[in-house]
């Protein structure tokens, strides 16, 4: 006999109680995934900030090079 079968719901637990537990289970799972995504997003933001800093540095260096080239040779 199958242990799980489709059919009419019985009063195994009241629907009100079951809804709370089902909602709890799904919320816990999605919370875990969201926490993980939050940590990843935080790391990504740090990385983007560092990249922007490096980008700015490269632009500053590029701007300095033509200025030096324009200086008259002694």
């Amino acid at each position, binding site marked *: 006999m*199958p*242990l799980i079968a*489709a*059919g009419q719901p019985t*009063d195994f637990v009241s629907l009100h109680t079951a809804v709370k537990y089902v909602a709890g*289970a799904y919320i816990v799972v999605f919370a875990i995934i969201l926490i993980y995504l939050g940590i990843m997003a935080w790391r990504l933001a740090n990385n983007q900030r560092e990249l922007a800093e490096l980008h700015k540095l490269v632009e500053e260096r590029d701007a300095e090079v033509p200025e030096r080239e324009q200086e008259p040779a002694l």
Partner: protein
Amino acid sequence: MSKHARHLRGLTIATLVFFLAGLALTFFYAPDDVNQGFAQKIFYIHVPLAIVSLCGYVLGGVFGVIHLRTRERIWDLRSYTAIHMSLIFSVGGLLSGAIWAKVAWGHWWVWSEPTLVSYLIVVLLFCTYQPLRFSIEDPERQSMYASVFSVVAGAFVPLNFLIVRLSEAFVHPRVLNLEGGTLPGSMALAFYVMVIAVALLFATLMKFEMLAKETRGQTRRLRRKLLGDDAVAPVGRSAAPL
């Protein structure tokens, strides 16, 4: 474009579509279980998480074998990420299972239930993976030892699963068996869509994590190139492949 970024957008969209379809089928199409009523809906997330996490551990072992054969660091990163993601999915599986057990059995945890305890043993075994990596400073040795561990522990997973199945056939509700499962059509459809959704989520997050680690490494290399070695903080001991 990094090879980890390839197909990431398509994979993310497919994950979202399958998740939404799976949830819709679970709550609006699949009927309530005759014995457990509405509480059985927990199975549609709990069982896929458990299945995908166990497959992830085995996948980590497979990547470990490839790493040992090829000695390419990318396979160590893949093995690490698969086990890392499996641990996160396992926590979800254990917690959702505990909630189901509370509704069905009146207890959050039942120590006499072999499926639960064996799954916990597998999770605890893989919980030692990261401390093992962290305890080895030399990156080369770290990756080699970690791969050996992933292979041995990965081989333990199907063995453990089979032993429990052979010894206790009717204690834990069986959603899947060798005859094709005990679920009727509408429930099976919702269940398999959720399995695919969770598997896609696993693949998406794994790719996302590998891409993040690769990007972090590239940023450090770029910083070192532009500003010199002194501008980059020493990495220090880490469990993650660098």
